[in-house]
């Protein structure tokens, strides 16, 4: 009886471990997909206020943002 109880505990423990490992692997896969484009941020991603970002509300502003960004594509 005690042996049976121990075996059931072992099976439940095994299922929990499998679920945890599965969850961990799934989350890891998800992270690796995100990392493909952003790459390393060198720890620079601080919370900058939204007002410091460019206003992309019109095509003129988008053209102007492209113009100023082109300065940095070769350096």
């Amino acid at each position, binding site marked *: 009886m005690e042996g049976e109880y121990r075996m*059931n505990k072992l099976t439940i423990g095994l299922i929990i471990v499998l679920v945890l490992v599965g969850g961990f692997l799934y989350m890891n896969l998800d992270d690796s997909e995100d990392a493909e484009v952003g790459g390393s941020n060198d720890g620079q991603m601080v919370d900058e206020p939204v007002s410091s970002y460019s206003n992309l509300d019109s095509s003129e502003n988008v053209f102007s943002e492209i113009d100023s960004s082109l300065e940095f594509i*070769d350096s």
Partner: protein
Amino acid sequence: MKRLFLFFIIGILISSFFVYAAGVSTGGEVSSDRAEVRSADVRNERAVVDDCENVNIRKDRIKCRLENRPERSSVPESCRTAENRGRCVALYNAIGKCYELNARNKDQCLKRAIGLRAKLSDDVSTERKEKTRDYVVALLYDLQERVEKANELGKLDSEESAVIIEKITEIKESIGSGVNKMEIREMMKELKSLWKESIE
């Protein structure tokens, strides 16, 4: 107790089979009426996508997509010839949700997805050059979205829209293949004049 536990496990296995079967039905494998209709929709959708994808001339391919508006996404036009197609597609996937936002929130979303700071001049990372190229591609995609919207609203016909989107695609491809800023600026001038002629 052991037998009860065994029944419990078998029960879970049997119910998971039914859940699996329900999932497959959305792909059109189960012969219910609804599944058949869905399956026919998927087939038609696939036919439209395939028809457009098989058009050899780029401008006509873009025009085909504009006119048929397939819901199923294909490989983005500028990624078709990209050296690293996977990375190119991943960029579009990463920034896709940002176009639902407006103004500064859109820029914040794009820059965060790419891994840039608010002001490019403040960015001192070793990958700034590459990230800036991604950012300019993202901005060009924003212009493309505006053309598609104008077409959808009937403000721009498919031919004019396709000409502008083809130019945008050319620029995106050039940026991806490492063309220098002087050449990109020249191409941008051509895009601006097309834009003025058709949209403004």
